[in-house]
Structures are given as C-alpha cells and as structure tokens.
C-alpha cells in the first residue's frame, strides 16, 4: 500500500485568533481510553501509581505529571494523554483502547475564553468554579466534548470527525465576542 501522509485533525484550520482569544491545536499525543473493569478500580489505581506515578482521576478531575496524564472522561473512563503509550500491564485491570487518531485536541487561550464557550456549552466555566485540573464531559454545540482547564488554557477534545465543526463553531463565538468588543 502507498505511504499515506499523516495529518493532524485540525490541519489547515488552526491557529485562529480573534480579539484576545487564540484557538490552536494541541500537540500530537498518544491517547488511550482507560476503563476499569467492575470492582478493579483500586487495582487499576495502584497499577497506575506504580507504572506512571499518577492515580486514576476522581470524577470531573484530572491527574498528571511529566510524560503522561489522565483526564476524567465519563463514568468509569479516563483519557490518557502522553508522549508514550500507557503501560500494557494496566490491561489486567482495565479495558485499554488506543484512540490517538480518534480525538481532535484543541486549546483555547486568552482573557474571556469562558465567555466564548458559554455560547456553546451550558457548563459554568468561570475560573472560580471550573478550576485548574477540573474536567467535564459536556455538550459543545451538538458535539460531545471533554473539557479540561490546564494552567492558562482551556483544553477541548471532540471526536476527530467533528474537528472542522468545532473549529467553525468556536470560531464564530470568538469572532462575535471580538466584534462586540470593537463596537
């Protein structure tokens, strides 16, 4: 088979800047969904700490350190994001699925990022409520997204097939806010 060129989910679409907000694509990362088997949550947590030095995140939270992190992504599931794959031994305790090519990873930065996303999601993203290390599975427009606050950026993950829709929807919100500010 011919060698196919690899492209990122938002290739050619980002970065995008309107007013003080910039939407960009996150770096290419290994992404795995980790879903503990019933009753194996404690075993998985211990195995994660042994192999990677991080625990399985509490609901609506994340854990992490250099090399790999976990963002809670729904009932009994967390998304691994790392420069390498998670330890194969975790498969004793959880279903591991390589989803590296399945998610578009976007970052929204700048003052007022919450106001832009408020047009697309019913979540309260105010920094006093949705703090650093907080995560949510929530609608973004009509998409099912994972949202996470990491230092200065709001990280967004949507299904790869929705990358163009997500960039369009967030871009419209950013442009509207910038236009209002300029009036």
């Amino acid at each position, binding site marked *: 088979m011919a060698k196919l060129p690899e492209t990122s989910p938002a290739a050619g679409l980002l970065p995008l800047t309107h007013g003080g907000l910039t939407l960009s694509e996150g770096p290419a990362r290994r992404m795995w969904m980790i879903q503990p088997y019933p009753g194996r949550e404690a075993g998985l947590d211990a195995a994660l700490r042994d192999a990677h030095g991080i625990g399985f995140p509490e*609901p*609506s939270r994340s854990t992490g350190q250099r090399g790999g992190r976990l963002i809670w992504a*729904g*009932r009994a*599931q967390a998304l691994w994001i790392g420069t390498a794959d998670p330890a194969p031994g975790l498969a004793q305790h959880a279903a591991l699925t390589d989803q590296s090519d399945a998610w578009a990873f976007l970052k929204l930065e700048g003052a007022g990022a919450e106001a832009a996303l408020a047009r697309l999601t*019913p979540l309260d993203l105010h920094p006093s409520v949705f703090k650093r290390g907080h995560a*949510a*599975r*929530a609608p973004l427009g009509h998409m099912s997204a994972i949202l996470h606050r990491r230092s200065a950026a709001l990280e967004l993950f949507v299904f790869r097939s929705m990358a163009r829709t997500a960039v369009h929807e967030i871009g419209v919100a950013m442009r509207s806010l910038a236009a209002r500010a300029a009036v």
Partner: protein
Amino acid sequence: MRIPCPLCGDRDRREFYYMGAAEALTAPPGPEAPPEVIDDQLHLRTNPAGETRDVWYHETGCGAWLIVTRDTVTHAVHGAVLAERRGTTA
C-alpha cells in the same frame, strides 16, 4: 429543571434522556407467576401525584444511568443516585 448527576454535578435536564419508571428495574416475576402479575410488571405503572423515581441516562455528559427522585406535583428534584448503586442508597 436540573438533575444533580452524582459524577458531573448539577446539569440541565436537556443533557439527559428519560428511560422510564424506576419500578421497572425490579426483577420480573418468574414463569410460575399468574398472568395478571406478569401483565402488571410489563404494562402497569403507578403514575403517582407526588414523589416518584425514574431512570435517566446522562446522554451528553458522563454516560451514567441515574435513578432520580422527584415530585410530580411541585416539580422539585430531590436527588439522584447511580443506577449501579441503587441497592446501597436511596
């Protein structure tokens, strides 16, 4: 109306899909049960004026199935537990 998801916190009702009365989760009667008991289990619901319990699926959130206790008269939502834990709480 907001539903307090035990995993996600308070979320808008539109994030959830209604899956029916919680009483339908009880085990069906065995094959030796008289036909009217099986008919009751399959087709008859209580439809209370007041407190009721039903099943909701957090479709655009965490994907959990919840048992929500609410009041059909006041529209108050009293609480929600994970359906997988229904034997231990509420």
